[in-house]
Structure formats: C-alpha cells, structure tokens
C-alpha cells in the first residue's frame, strides 16, 4: 500500500519545494502593458485614418473603436493588478494558510465589447491575488 501512494508523497514534496507560487510574475502586468501599447498604436491609426480606410470597414472608423476598447482593457488589467496585488511576492514558497480573504475584484476584461469574460457580469469572479496571478 505504501508503494501505491509513493507518487502522492512525491508530488506533495515537490509542491512544497515549488518556486512557481513565490517567483512567478503577475500575468496581468503583461496583458495590461501590451494592450495599452496596442491600444495607442491602433488609436493613432484611427486618428490618421483615410477615407478609403473608413470605406473599407463599411463606414466605421474601426481603428478608433478597437483602439479605445483595447486601451481600456489594458488599463483595466493594470488597475485590477493595482487594487489586488499578489499577496506575498517572494516570501516563503506556498503561503497557503496566509491568504487574504476573498472579495470583489474587477472581472478580467470587463471593458471588452459584448462582455465575453467570465467575470464581466458578476463582481468578484476575479481571484484574490495569491500564488501567481
């Protein structure tokens, strides 16, 4: 029987030594940063759009719309990260018991047109930042 469960002990042991929770950066920073830059680039294209561009996109200045939405999503991610930072960056690995309680967090991408995000409808589907976010 003990042999049967050896792998479970091994996984538990590895999980204790694991560095991911403590050392993995916050993905919200990457998404936020890239989307802010993308938003600005596409907005510039929107401000300088020619009549031909607008006509091609069935009469919408799509660059302007997309650029502002993308920028808004990027800023929301940065804001969310600011409001709920990771709990214990670089502290002991696996700060399991010391997690902050849950509470409402901004849903990811709440500004996305059409509200396609799991969190956009309900406040609090955002995780409280702990572990890696």
């Amino acid at each position, binding site marked *: 029987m003990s042999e049967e469960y050896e792998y479970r002990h091994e996984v538990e042991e590895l999980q204790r030594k694991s560095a991911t929770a403590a050392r993995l950066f916050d993905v919200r920073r990457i998404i936020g940063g890239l*989307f802010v830059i993308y938003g600005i680039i596409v907005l510039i294209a929107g401000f300088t759009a020619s009549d031909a561009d607008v006509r091609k996109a069935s009469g919408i200045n799509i660059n302007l719309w997309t650029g502002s939405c993308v920028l808004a999503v990027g800023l929301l991610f940065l804001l969310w990260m600011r409001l709920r930072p990771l709990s214990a960056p670089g502290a002991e690995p696996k700060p399991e018991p010391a997690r902050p309680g849950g509470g409402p967090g901004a849903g990811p991408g709440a500004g996305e047109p059409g509200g396609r995000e799991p969190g956009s409808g309900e406040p609090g589907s955002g995780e409280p930042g702990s572990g890696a976010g």
Partner: protein
Amino acid sequence: MHYLAEGLRLPTNALDYTILILYFVVVLGVGFAARASVRTSLDFFLSGRSLPAWVTGLAFVAANLGALEILGMAANGAQYGVYTVHWYWVGAIPAMVFLGLVMMPFYYGSKVRSVPEFLLHRYGPSSHLLSSIIFSVASVLIAGVNLYAMAIVVEALLGWPQWVAIVVAGLFVLAYITLGGLSSAIYNEVLQFFVILAALIPLTVVGLRRIGGFGGLKDSLTASHGPNFVSAWGGTGIGSDNPLGANWLTIVLGLGFCLSFGYWTTNFAEVQRALSAKNLSAAQRTPLIAAFPKMFIPLIVVVPGLIALVMEPDIGTEKSGLQYNDAIPLLMSELLPNGVLGLAVTGLLAAFMAGMAANVSSFNTVFTNDIWRAYVMKGRPDGYYLLTGRVVTAIGVLAGMGTAFIASSFSNIMNYLQTLFSFFNVPLFCVFIIGMFWKRATAAAGFWGLLCGTVAAMINYFWLYLGDVIAIPSDQGANFVSAIVAFVAGGVVMVAVTPFTRPRPVESLAGLVYGTTAPGVAEPPAPGDEAWYRRPAVLGWSALILAALCYIPFSL
C-alpha cells in the same frame, strides 16, 4: 484541403508589422521571465500546482482556440450553416461542466500529474503505456499539422515562404516552453486569448455592418440556402436530409456525448491546464470558468463564416477558387484597414502558436513522466527529469517541424491520421467513466476496452463508411456514428471482460473511484472559496442553462 487562393494577400504595412513584432518580443519575454519560477519538475510540468482559476480557465479555452479550430469552425459555418453551434452548445459546454463537476475531484484529488497517469493507478501499466504512446505520437503529429496549416495561411496572407513560417513559429514555441515550462505556455495562452478576441471582434462587427446586421445575415441566407440553414435543429429529424449528414440522435449522442466528452475530459492538453490550478476548488472551476467564454465563441467564429458566405456566395466551389477554410482570411483582406489588420494577423498567428504550444507542453509531460520515467529511467533525482523535460520539449518541437514538412507532400494521409487519433479519446472516456464509478472494473478490462473501442470505431469509419457498406451522407455524420460505436464497443468489452479477470485490491483504489477517499488529510478550502459565485455547482449549472438558452433564437 488547406489550399489558399492567391488573391488573399493582405495589404500589410509597417504599422501592422510593428504590432506583430511586438507580440513576438512579448511572447519570448514571458518565457525568460517565467524561467525564474522553475525549480522542480513539478514547476516545469504543472506550474507547481499553484495558478489561480481565472488564469487556468482562460488558458483552458485558449489551448483549444488554435487557428485550426478558428479557421475550421468558420469553414463549418460557411459549409453547414448554423448547425455548427452544436459543437459548442451541445458538445463542448456539457462536457466541460461534466469535467469540472464530476471528474476533476478524481483527477486533481488523486494528485496524478497527467491523464495517462490516472490510468496507471486505476488500471495498471498496460493501458497506461498504450494511452501514453498514442497521446505522444498524436500530439507531435497534430503540432506538425498545425504548423503546416499556419505556413500555408501565412504564405497566402503575408507572402512569407512556407519554410520561414514553420521555422520561425516553431523556434519561438520551442524557446518559450523550454525556458518557462507550463507556466510560460499558460501565461502566453491567456495573452493569446485576449489578442484573439481583439482580432475577431472588430472583424465580426465590421462584417455584420457590411451585410446589414443579424437581420440581413438571416434574410440573405434564408433566401439563398433555405430556412434550415439558419436553424439549429431544423431538418435534423431521423431520415431527413441536411447538409451536416446527421440527425438529432447522432448529434446528441455522437457529437454531444461521445466525441465531446471524449475530447474535453480525457485530452491531456486541456486537462493539464486544470491540474496546474492551486487547489481542488480552482481545478474544478477551471473548465467551468472556461465554459462561459466558450459559449460565445461561435459569435466571433461561426458568424464570420456565415458572413463570408453572404459576401462571397461561391466560396467552397471551383468558381471562386476559395475554400471554406478561407472564410476568415477573406474577411480580413476585404474589411480591415491597416492597424486593426495588424491585430488580426497577430491574433491568427497567436492562435496557431497557442494550439501548438498546448500540444507541445502536454507532450513533454506525458513523454517524460509516463514513458521515460515510468518505463525507461526510473528513480533518478528530480533535476534529471526537469532536464529531460526540457530536452523532450526541444525534440518534440523539432519532430513537429519535421512533420510539417512531411505534411506538405502527404496532406491526405495526415487527415486520415488525425481522424484515426480522434477515435482514441472516445473509448478512453468510456474506460475512465467506468473506472471512476465501478470498483470491480479490472486492469484487463481497461486495456481491452480501450483497444476494442478504438478498433471498432476504425472499422466503422474506414471499412463500413469509406467502403460504402453503410450509407452515411457526410464525413461528419460518419464521425458521430463511429464515436457512438467506439463508446458502446468499449463499454461492452469492459463489462464482458471484468467478471473473468482479477479485480485490483480495493485499498489501492482509494481516491481513484467514486465512494473512496484519498489517504491523508484533505486540503482545507482556501478562504474566499466558499463564496456562492465560486461554488462549482453554481457555475456549472448556470453554464448549462445559459447554453440551453443560447439555442432559443435558432430554434423558433
């Protein structure tokens, strides 16, 4: 199948390329930044089982939202019409909910590191080795087919030679997974998910406006293809004729139950995302959170396929020179000005890389843990397996690139191989579900159920269908029927073999079968997880109800 017309070259400019290059830089940067977090093999293969549910949930969607899926589902939309929504609402959603509510406690709670490893502990080495080898070969093959498909699209859209696209995309995937392991694959998938949305939403909006909104879309398709084309269930009575070649029974049982449950609940490329979550509650919520965006993906994938059909009624015929697979590239070149066009190209490339990265990161885990470590080099220190994982990643990507080059001369064979491997998931699901709920099911029953189910599906598809012994109107219809055959054959063989073979001792099944608990202390729930909106049952049932409601506009 993957041929793209000459006339699709996009008028890209420096702005579009800036967006694209920026993306490649960030993808690589994520790999380098994630490297610091890899200390053990568990970090490399399962992100140390530490990620929050929203990250793993979005990665769960993105791992499936490869470009083959996007282009293919848009093509299905143009070819079969609104029936394509069945892949999502009767197919994916119930299966994802089932994975989260019913199967995940066994997967995550038993602390296995892969789907085949569950077979090892539940049934024993024979079925474990069989499924590990088939999964590994299939992953490399699918990664290769994915790369090849990308090379063709990129050649048509941007004018890069095929080998350049294969080498560039392959090396980027190799670099970021070798460096950061699953964490960097998952982080990039989350990023890819949002980039894909930013690419497809504007495309759909502009396209709808061009043809007069949803009303205009419905009117022109009804006029040209009849009312059943814009309905989900119209014309699916048993014996009646429809473009999909399937009736409501084969749709619900074959596509909904057998094929989709087989794919979503046993495909390790998907389940791996949930296994990397930080606790059982987060693991259960991974596919449930994923179900919500998944439900709305037809809006930005199938609808563009329909729009393309209205704008170019000859698509898919000789006359236009365009294939159904060209639907989304066609809309990109017709509708998007520079700027958004760059986003769309980036989104498409991101989707290709997401699909391939999911295959590679699950392949390296299964090959290292379930083949190399279990049967070839046992009992080495953890660092050895971490290094092996990195080497296997590189080998897997290079093999995928090789497959891509082979695929360019033998694309028909590749299609058959994919069909063949798709049959393996269905009996695998059958073996899992029986094993999880029936203590008595024996090791031999698991192995023979797996093998006989797969063979039965292949006989049905390759001999009875392709040999014209039975009449099924289309490939898709035949797929659905083969899946039902595989499930029934696998189940019957298991039930038949079990009474004559020795069961596994009950104490070795703790935590693997319904009604038993894993030894040791159960993990305490994390604070905050008891909130009602985080309860798996609430999430799961609301996903199911919402999916059923989605059918209403297409059934009246």
